[in-house]
C-alpha cells in the first residue's frame, strides 16, 4: 500500500475546510504561522480485506488536530472513501507524529487537512508497500517552476495541488515541482503557502506530452526582503540603539531617511525646521560625529536637512550612540551616528528607482563572476527643485536654484579577505539672484548673486579577515576631499578645500574565551587651503564705525594637520554566562597638530559595564573622558602659533533595561556631562592679527533622564514611546567673573515621541508619529537704538541670555504606503504628511525693525510628501 500524504491547508484555531469556490484572485489572509507542521513519522494502516478484494483505491480526507508537541489529539473524516478505509485511516491517525507548528510565540496547536491515501500494488494486487527504488512510477507529465513576483526568486516549499485529483507535492529548493501520472484533461492547479497569496490556474494535460508551466506568486509580506536581521547587535555599548532600514521606512516624517529617525530617539533634540542638525544630549551639532563604515564625514544631510547624503537602499543599519560610547570613537563631545552600508547584493540583479517631490535617484546592484562572488552596486541621485522652481518664480525677478546630488559605488568580494570598496560623494549648492536692476541691499559691495556650495568625496576600502577563531583584523584606508565655497556679489568670496586621509586599523584578539582585546588606530591627516575675500577688514569692523571707510581685503592660507589617535579596548565577560556581565575598559590618546598653528594632546579613559541583574533585567553604566579639537576656523590665526586646546567632557551614565516579552523592551538611563575648556570667543579681543579670536574658557553642564518603551518590528506592528528630560547649560567666561549660567541654544526640557506602524491587508501600511517638545530658549530684546548713519537699530537684551522660550512644539505626522507587485517588478507608493493636525509651530523669533514688536517665525503648517519607489529584478 502506498499512502499519499497531502497537506492541503493549515489553519491556526480554524477548522473550516477550504472553500473550493474561491476565486483565484480572492485575497487570502496569511495565517500568522512562522512554521508549518511537518510529518515526522508515518504509520501504515492495514488495508481492509473488503477493500483489498474490491480493489478500492483513493484518499480519505482527514481533519486532524495537532498539539504544541506535534502529537495528533483529534481526527475526523471530512471526505469519505469507504467506511472501511475511513475507519482504517482514523485508527492510525493518532499514531502519526508531526513537528509542531510555530508562530511568533513558539510552538502552537493547529488543525490541518490531511489526505490519507490507499493505493494497491498493481503487480500483486495487494496492499502496496513503499519501496525506495523498485516502485514502478508513471512518467512525469506535468512540471513547473514557481517564482516570486517582482524579485523572480525561486520559491521552495510551496504547496502544489491539483484540486480535482488531489495530487499534490511541494516545490524543491529551486522552486521546481513535477507530478507523475496526472490524468489527462483540465485541472485546477493551486499553489499555496502562508505569507504568499494563493494562486490558482487552469492547466490541461494532454496525451504523450510533458506540460510545463511557470507560475508567479505574490508575496504579501512587506518584511521578506528587508533587513530585520540587523535589528539586534551585540550590546557592547552602554547605549547603542540600532535602527533597521525596515523601521526607518515606516516612520512618518523621516522621508525614509535613516538618520532623520534619530530625532525620534531618547536624547536627541529636535533641530529647527530646515536645519537638520544633529543635537544629541545637549551638545552642539558640530560636537556629534557621523561615520560611514568607520570613516567620519562632515555632513549627513543635503541642503535643508531633508535628505541624507547616502542612498538609503545601500544602508544596512544606523547605530545611534548618544553617550557612553567606547574608545573607537573619538574627537567628539556629543553623540555618534554610525552608519553601516550593506555589503552584499541580491542574487538577482536589481534596479530600483525612487522619485518624490524633491529628487529622484536610481540604484543598480547585482553579482558578477562565475559564482557571483563579486557584489557591485552603483547609485546616484539628483534633486530637481532647481529645474522646477523657476516656473513658480517666473515674473518675480528672483532666481533661486537649490540643488544637490550624491553618488555611491560599492564593490564587495569575500575571499580570504573580506573586501569592500566604497566610493561616494555629494554636492549641494544654492544660487540666489535678482534682476540686475533690483538692489539686494543698501550696500553696493554686496550687489550681485549669492552662491553657496559644499561637497564631499570619499573613497575607502574596508578589509576584514579572520585569521583564526580568536584573531581578526580590520583595516579601512580612505582618501577624500571636502569643499566649501560662499560668494556674494563681487567682493564676498570664501573658499576652503580640505584633502583628507583617514585610516582606521583595528584588531580583535581573544586570548581567553572571556577576554577580548581590541587595539586600534584612528588616523586623520590632510592638507587645507582657504581664501577669504571681504569688502572690509575684520580688524576695522571691531570699531563698528559706520562712517569709516571700508577696504576690501583678501587673505588665505594653506597648511597641513594630522592626528594619529591610538586606542585600546578590553572587554571581559567574567561570569559563566557571558551575557550576564560585560566589563569594558578603554584608553584613547588624542593628538591633533595643525602645523604652525597649534598642537593639542588629550587622554580619554573610558569604562562601561552591563550586568544582567535578573533573567530579563540589565543594569548598565559608563564613565569616561571625551575630548574634541577646536573647529577649523577656531584653530587658526594669521600669525599662527595660537594657544588653544581640546574641549573636554567628563561623562557618566547609569541605566536599566527590562525585557518585557520577546519583542518589547523598556530602557531608562540617567546621564551627566561636565564640559570644560569649551572654545568661546575671546572677550578681550581687540586685534585679529595679533590676538587669538577664540579661547578655551567656556564651561558647561548637561544632565538628564531618558526612557524608551519599544516594540520591535517582528510582526505587523512596531512602535516606541520615548521621553527625555534634560537640561544643558553654558557659562562662557567664568575666568572673567561671568557667573550667569544660561541654557544652551537648543536646550529642550521635555522631548516626548510616540510612534507606531502597522501592516494592513492588501499590502497597505500605515504609521503615525506624535511629538511634544519644549520650545528652544532665546534671548529677548527690546528698545532698539536707531543708528542714523546706518539706518538700522541696535537692540538691547531685556532679559538674561536665553531666558525666554519659544512656544512648545507639537506635531502629528502620518504616513501611508501601498505596495503593488507585478510579475517582474514592484512599486511602492507613499504619502507622508508632516504636521497633519496642529498647524504651525514656532521655530525662531523675529523682531520688527526697532525691536518693539516680536513674532514667531513658524514652520510650514502642513508638509505633504509623496512619491514612489520601483524595483525591477532583471
Amino acid at each position, binding site marked *: 500500500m502506498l499512502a499519499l500524504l497531502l497537506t492541503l491547508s493549515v489553519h491556526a484555531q480554524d477548522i473550516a475546510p477550504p472553500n473550493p469556490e474561491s476565486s483565484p484572485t480572492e485575497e487570502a489572509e496569511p495565517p500568522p504561522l512562522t512554521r508549518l507542521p511537518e510529518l515526522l513519522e508515518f504509520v501504515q494502516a492495514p488495508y481492509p480485506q473488503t477493500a483489498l478484494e474490491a480493489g478500492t483505491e483513493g484518499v480519505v480526507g482527514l481533519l486532524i488536530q495537532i498539539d504544541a508537541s506535534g502529537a495528533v489529539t483529534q481526527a475526523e473524516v471530512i471526505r469519505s472513501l469507504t467506511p472501511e478505509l475511513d475507519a482504517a485511516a482514523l485508527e492510525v491517525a493518532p499514531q502519526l507524529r508531526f513537528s509542531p507548528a510555530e508562530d511568533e510565540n513558539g510552538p502552537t496547536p493547529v488543525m490541518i487537512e490531511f489526505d490519507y491515501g490507499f493505493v494497491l500494488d498493481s503487480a500483486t494486487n495487494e496492499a502496496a508497500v513503499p519501496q525506495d527504488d523498485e516502485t514502478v512510477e508513471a512518467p512525469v507529465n506535468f512540471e513547473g517552476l514557481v517564482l516570486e513576483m517582482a524579485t523572480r526568486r525561486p520559491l521552495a516549499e510551496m504547496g502544489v495541488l491539483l484540486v480535482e485529483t488531489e495530487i499534490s507535492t511541494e516545490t524543491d529548493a529551486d522552486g521546481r515541482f513535477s507530478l507523475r501520472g496526472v490524468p489527462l484533461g483540465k485541472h485546477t492547479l493551486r499553489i499555496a503557502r502562508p505569507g504568499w497569496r494563493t494562486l490558482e490556474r487552469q492547466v490541461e494535460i494532454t496525451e504523450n506530452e510533458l506540460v510545463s508551466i511557470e507560475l508567479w506568486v505574490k508575496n504579501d509580506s512587506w518584511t521578506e526582503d528587508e533587513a530585520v536581521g540587523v535589528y539586534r547587535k551585540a550590546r557592547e555599548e552602554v547605549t547603542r540603539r540600532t535602527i533597521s532600514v525596515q523601521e526607518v521606512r515606516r516612520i512618518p516624517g523621516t522621508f525614509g531617511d535613516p538618520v532623520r529617525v534619530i530625532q525620534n530617539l531618547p536624547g536627541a533634540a529636535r533641530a529647527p*525646521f*530646515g536645519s537638520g542638525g544633529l543635537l544629541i544630549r545637549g551638545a552642539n551639532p558640530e560636537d556629534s560625529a557621523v561615520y560611514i563604515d568607520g570613516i567620519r564625514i562632515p555632513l549627513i544631510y543635503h*541642503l*535643508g536637512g*531633508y535628505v541624507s547624503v547616502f542612498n538609503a537602499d545601500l544602508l544596512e543599519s544606523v547605530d545611534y550612540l548618544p553617550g557612553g560610547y567606547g574608545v573607537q570613537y573619538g574627537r567628539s563631545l556629543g553623540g555618534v551616528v554610525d552608519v553601516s552600508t550593506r555589503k552584499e547584493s541580491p542574487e538577482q540583479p536589481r534596479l530600483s528607482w525612487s522619485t518624490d*517631490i*524633491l529628487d529622484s535617484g536610481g540604484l543598480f546592484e547585482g553579482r558578477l563572476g562565475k559564482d557571483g562572488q563579486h557584489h557591485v552596486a552603483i547609485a546616484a541621485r539628483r534633486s530637481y*527643485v532647481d529645474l*522646477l*522652481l523657476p516656473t*513658480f518664480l517666473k515674473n518675480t525677478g528672483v532666481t*533661486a536654484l*537649490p540643488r544637490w546630488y550624491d553618488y555611491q559605488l560599492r564593490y564587495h568580494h569575500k575571499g580570504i579577505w573580506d573586501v569592500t570598496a566604497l566610493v561616494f560623494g555629494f554636492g549641494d549648492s*544654492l544660487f540666489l539672484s535678482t534682476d540686475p*536692476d*533690483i*538692489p539686494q*541691499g*543698501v550696500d*553696493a559691495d554686496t*550687489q550681485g548673486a549669492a552662491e553657496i556650495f559644499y561637497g564631499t568625496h570619499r573613497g575607502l576600502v574596508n578589509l576584514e579577515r579572520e585569521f583564526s577563531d580568536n584573531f581578526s583584523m580590520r583595516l579601512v584606508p580612505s582618501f577624500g576631499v571636502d569643499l566649501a565655497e560662499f560668494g556674494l556679489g563681487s567682493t564676498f568670496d570664501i573658499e576652503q578645500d580640505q584633502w583628507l586621509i583617514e585610516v582606521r586599523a583595528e584588531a580583535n584578539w581573544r586570548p581567553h574565551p572571556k577576554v577580548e582585546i581590541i587595539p586600534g588606530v584612528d588616523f586623520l591627516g590632510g592638507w587645507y587651503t582657504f581664501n577669504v575675500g571681504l569688502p572690509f*577688514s575684520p580688524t576695522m569692523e571691531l570699531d563698528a*564705525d*559706520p*562712517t569709516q*571707510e571700508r*577696504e576690501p*581685503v583678501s587673505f588665505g592660507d594653506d597648511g597641513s594637520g594630522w592626528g594619529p589617535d591610538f586606542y585600546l579596548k578590553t572587554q571581559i565577560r567574567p561570569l559563566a554566562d557571558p551575557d550576564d556581565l560585560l566589563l569594558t575598559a578603554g584608553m584613547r590618546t588624542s593628538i591633533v597638530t595643525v602645523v604652525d598653528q597649534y598642537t593639542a594632546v588629550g587622554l580619554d579613559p573610558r569604562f562601561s559595564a552591563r550586568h544582567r541583574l535578573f533573567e530579563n533585567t540589565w543594569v548598565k553604566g559608563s564613565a569616561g573622558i571625551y575630548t574634541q579639537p577646536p573647529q577649523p576656523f577656531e584653530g587658526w590665526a594669521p600669525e599662527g602659533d595660537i594657544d588653544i586646546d581640546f574641549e573636554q567632557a567628563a561623562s557618566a551614565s547609569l541605566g536599566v533595561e527590562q525585557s518585557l516579552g520577546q519583542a518589547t523592551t523598556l530602557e531608562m538611563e540617567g546621564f551627566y556631562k561636565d564640559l570644560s575648556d569649551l572654545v568661546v570667543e575671546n572677550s578681550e579681543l581687540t586685534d585679529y592679527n595679533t590676538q587669538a579670536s577664540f579661547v578655551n574658557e567656556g564651561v558647561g553642564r548637561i544632565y538628564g533622564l531618558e526612557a524608551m518603551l519599544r516594540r520591535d518590528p517582528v510582526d505587523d506592528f512596531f512602535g516606541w514611546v520615548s521621553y527625555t528630560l534634560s537640561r544643558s547649560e553654558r557659562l562662557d567666561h567664568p575666568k572673567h567673573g561671568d557667573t550667569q549660567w544660561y541654557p544652551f541654544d537648543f536646550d529642550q526640557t521635555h522631548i516626548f515621541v510616540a510612534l507606531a506602524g502597522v501592516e494592513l491587508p492588501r499590502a497597505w501600511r500605515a504609521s503615525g508619529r506624535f511629538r511634544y517638545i519644549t520650545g528652544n530658549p532665546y534671548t529677548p530684546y527690546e*528698545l532698539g*537704538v*536707531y*543708528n*542714523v*548713519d546706518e*539706518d538700522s537699530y*541696535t537692540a538691547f537684551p531685556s532679559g538674561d541670555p536665553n531666558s525666554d522660550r519659544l512656544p512648545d512644539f507639537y506635531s502629528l505626522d502620518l504616513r501611508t504606503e501601498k505596495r503593488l507587485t507585478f510579475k517582474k517588478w514592484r512599486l511602492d507608493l507613499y504619502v507622508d504628511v508632516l504636521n497633519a493636525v496642529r498647524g*504651525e509651530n514656532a*521655530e525662531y523669533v*523675529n*523682531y*520688527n*525693525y*526697532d525691536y*518693539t*514688536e*516680536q*513674532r514667531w*517665525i*513658524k*514652520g*510650514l*503648517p502642513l*508638509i*505633504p*510628501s*509623496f512619491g514612489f519607489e520601483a524595483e525591477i529584478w532583471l
Partner: protein
Amino acid sequence: MALITLAIGMLGCTIEREQLSQSWQIDRTRILGVLAEVADETGSPTDRAEASPGETVLLSSLHVHPTQEIGGVFWMGCALTSADEFGCETDPEAIEALFDADIETLSFEEQLALYEEARAAGFLGFEPYSEAFLQPQIQVPEDLLDELEPSEQLEGLSYIVNMVATPENKSGEMDDSDTEIATKRVVVSQAVDGLPWTPNHNPKIQYLLIDGEQHVPGTPRSASPGDTFELEPILTTASIEEYSYINRSGEEEIRQEEPWFAFYTTDGFFDIPFSLSEYSEVDFSIPKETVSESIQVWIVVRDRRGGMHWHEQIFEITQDN
C-alpha cells in the same frame, strides 16, 4: 503646489500670518535723519558735514510722527574718546537741573548759565528751540585732535551725538511711551577742502522725478487710491564726491561716494524701500482702500561717510467717487 511650498521651506522661508511693522511705515515716533552742518564765520550752516577743531556744527533732525507733533528732541553728545559702546557718559544731574528749572522765573543770564553747565555735561540742544543758544550744536574743542598723529588728524575721529524724540499727546503733554532714541557720528578732522584730503559734504536731493517728470519741490502731487508712482530722487552734481583714501598698504586711492536712498511713508508701500544711486527709482503705491486725505513720503539720502539730506513729498488723495 506642494513642490513650491516645500521648496520655499527649504530656503528657510516661512508662511507669515502676522506682519510686523516695517521700517518704512511711519506709524510711531521716528527720527529719519540728522543733518550735521558746519557753521561758517557768521554762524550760518554750510554744506560741509565734517568739522575741524574749534568749529561749530549745527545739528537738525528729521523727526516725524503720523498723527502727533513731536514735542521735543533732546540732544546730547561727546567725543568718541569719552563714549562707551553705546553712547556718552554724562553727568545727569547737570542736565536734569536744566530741565527741572522753572525757566520762566529765571533771567536770561541764569538760563544761559544753566545751559552752559548742562552743555559741559554733554547737552547739545533741544528741538524745537525757543532761544538760539538751545539750537542743537557741537562746539568742537580746539584740542580734540591734539593727541593724534598728523596722519591720524587727517582721518579724524568721531563725535557721538545722541537724541531722544518724544511726541506730545492730545493734551500737549510729553508721551514717554512712544519715544525714539537715536545716535549719529559726526566726523572731526583736519581735512580741508580740495584733494587729496577733502572733508565730507552733505549730499543734496535737488528734486524728485515722479513717473519720469521733474516735480516742483514743496508742491503736493495729486493722486487717487490705487495709484502707483515711480519715484526717482535726483542729486545735485556735487553730491557725489571724490575723496582720498590711504589703504592698508599705505597707498592713496581716489574713491567716489556711493550714496543710497531710504524711503518712508505714512501710508502706502514701496516695491523696495531703498535704492542705490545706480538703481535710484522705486515704485510707490497708494492703497486702494486708503482713507488718507494726504500721504507723506520722505526720502533720505546717505553718502556712507556721515553726510545726509532729505526730501519730503506730499500726495493729496482724491477719492474718485
